[in-house]
């Protein structure tokens, strides 16, 4: 009986976290982003284990707060957040739903991470993996800058529909 009740509380917490948006990319939830690694129950408290996306991501503190608030608001608290670095987060953990929502939001989702991890350095003339325009779907696109409005994104533009767009960098 107790075990069922425990599982329910943890499951409810997962459902709540599935509705907490990422503060910088609000189109997707923390679960879809793949940063919620575990939810555990310790007596009266819930422990939510998160992994940071980038070392210096300024959204990390906001995310911690919104997790605690959301769990509290759902009556499942108190909650505490543990940051766990290892294993390091990768964009491969963004769910398929998350990828679809990113595209619909106007952000081209990342391709597989580390495909070229073994290559120490690539000089100009290298081919970037093609990124499809999230608006018109054309692969006729070019990168403007490897760094964008947040640590996780690069700036691109579509040469077919002429719209600029952001690309979630594979990491």
């Amino acid at each position, binding site marked *: 009986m107790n075990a069922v009740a425990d599982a329910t509380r943890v499951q409810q917490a997962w459902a709540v976290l599935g509705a907490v948006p990422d503060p910088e990319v609000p189109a997707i939830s923390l679960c879809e982003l793949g940063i919620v690694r575990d939810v555990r129950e310790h007596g009266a408290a819930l422990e939510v284990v998160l992994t940071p996306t*980038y*070392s210096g991501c300024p959204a990390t503190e906001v995310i911690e707060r919104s997790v605690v608030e959301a769990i509290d608001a759902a009556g499942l608290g108190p909650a505490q957040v543990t940051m766990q670095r*290892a294993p390091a987060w990768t964009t491969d953990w963004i769910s398929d739903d998350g990828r679809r929502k990113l595209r619909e939001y106007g952000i081209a989702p990342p391709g597989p991470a580390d495909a070229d991890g073994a290559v120490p*350095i*690539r000089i100009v003339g290298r081919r970037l993996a093609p990124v499809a325009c999230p608006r018109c779907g054309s692969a006729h696109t070019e990168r403007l800058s490897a760094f*964008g409005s947040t640590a996780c994104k690069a700036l691109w533009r579509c040469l077919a529909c002429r719209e600029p767009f952001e690309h979630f960098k594979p990491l």
Partner: protein
Amino acid sequence: MQASIQLPDDPKLRYLLRIGDTCLILAQRLGEWCGHGPIIEEDIALSNMALDLIGQARGVLTLAGDQCPQDYDEDQLAFLREERDYLNATMAELPRGDFAFTVLRNLMLATWLKLSWERLRESQDSELAAIAAKALKEARYHQQHAADWLVRLGDGTAESRRRVEAALAQLWPYAAELFEADAVDAAAVASGLGPSVAQLREPWLAEISAVFGEVNLPLPAEGRFRSTGRQGVHSEHMGYILAEMQHLQRAFPGGAW
């Protein structure tokens, strides 16, 4: 006035500070470009890289603080040390110079950091290994960005080429320090904490040569000058950068917002 903190004499602490402080001070220099980049994309890119480096420094300095009996936190270490207790490579503290100087310094230090993080993933210290696994992914982007620009500038106009060559002449003497191993490195190797910087020299030269080779930029000869930032003995520029960094915490101890 907030008094300076005192550090124990501990090789692990020194090893960590050499990495964390290099990230911290380079981040401070890159941050100076915010609002001053030659084009907005570069303004954003340099600020982004500064942010990554601050994040890496936070992780390493937190771990460094755990090595001290006083259990210092990242902020105490970042803001309340005396100049000689900062152990960044001197190259990181040199004034930001022009864009060519910044690009070349980023190439040299991002390559050095990337090679360090690669090896630190195997550290016996699991927290350091975790920081390294994350930082490595970021450092690859930094190195790639700097390499792209180095080639573009080196193969660009006569003016951009002149600036790259001038930057190389200024920066190269500070590269030797990056590979000067001492007892701190030996202790790190013995305990499995991380590599000796001497092990990074060959792969570093190979990667830097590959980029230079793209634009026929010869590697300069090694001179006898040795900078000593990693021993805590800094250039004349360090005091100014610390004054700027520390002013707020010294004037308003514990100030937060």
